[in-house]
């Protein structure tokens, strides 16, 4: 009887461990696919032939980045990024570029670009290797906690942002009216 119970417990633990590893493997597969798409659209943003299509690629990159952010557990940030950043800021770029109708005539300097990019990659890679301490999925804090934090500890920052956004709207309107 005792042996049967022990076997059942072992089987239960084994199944649980296999399921946990399968979950992580599926998560990893999904994340890898998302990352590959984000990098591909980022490349299209930088190297696209037309500025409008490059702007659309930026919107797709930012959307995929918000999916990765949601995957990490930060659902609130992902929603804000989709609504405010992709929905407002990047759409503003797309509409402005479309209305300007400007064509790209400048010549690329590939040598400088590759050199600076490789230098940045090596320096940041070394720095991040020291900074990286470990990863856990973020425990999603309730929206009440975040709003309390923003309205108490970060109140001054919030006021500054509100003033900056208001000034931005006024400035953008006045510049567009000239």
């Amino acid at each position, binding site marked *: 009887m005792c042996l049967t119970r022990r076997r059942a417990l072992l089987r239960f633990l084994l199944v649980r461990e296999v399921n946990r590893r399968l979950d992580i493997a599926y998560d990893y597969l999904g994340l890898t696919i998302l990352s590959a798409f984000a990098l591909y659209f980022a490349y299209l943003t930088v190297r696209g032939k037309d500025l409008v299509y490059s702007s659309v690629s930026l919107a797709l990159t930012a959307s995929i980045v918000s999916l990765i952010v949601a995957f990490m557990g930060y659902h609130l940030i992902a929603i804000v990024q989709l609504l405010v950043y992709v929905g407002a800021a990047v759409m503003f770029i797309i509409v402005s570029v479309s209305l300007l109708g400007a064509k790209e005539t400048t010549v690329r300097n590939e040598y400088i670009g590759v050199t600076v990019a490789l230098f940045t990659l090596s320096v940041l890679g070394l720095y991040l290797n020291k900074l990286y301490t470990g990863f856990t999925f973020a425990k999603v804090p309730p929206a009440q906690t975040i709003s309390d934090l923003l309205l108490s500890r970060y109140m001054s920052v919030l006021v500054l942002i509100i003033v900056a956004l208001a000034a931005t709207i006024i400035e953008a309107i006045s510049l*567009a009216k000239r």
Partner: protein
Amino acid sequence: MTAVTIESIGYTITVTGLLLITIGVYGFAATRNLIRMLLSLEIVFNGVFLVILALITSAPSYATALGIILISVVSAEVAVVVAIIAAYYRKTGVLDSDSAENVEGGV
């Protein structure tokens, strides 16, 4: 065969952010087109955003507050820069950053 652990997920997110930063820096340094430079800077922002969030998963409340503040600031920056670029293009007819210093009377 190496087992996939939660650390692999953290590394993948950090490396993705790092590669996004590299692509953005490449685009910024390789071109002189103002709009393309802005788009490249936005790619850099997305990469930095991913790296920062991957590094501070132990304090999710502060990370969320920081993320919301970052997105607001970057949205304001985008609006200002696009408005300046539009005014510059209307005045000069080109989007080349090299000819910006020849503009008389500013934008």
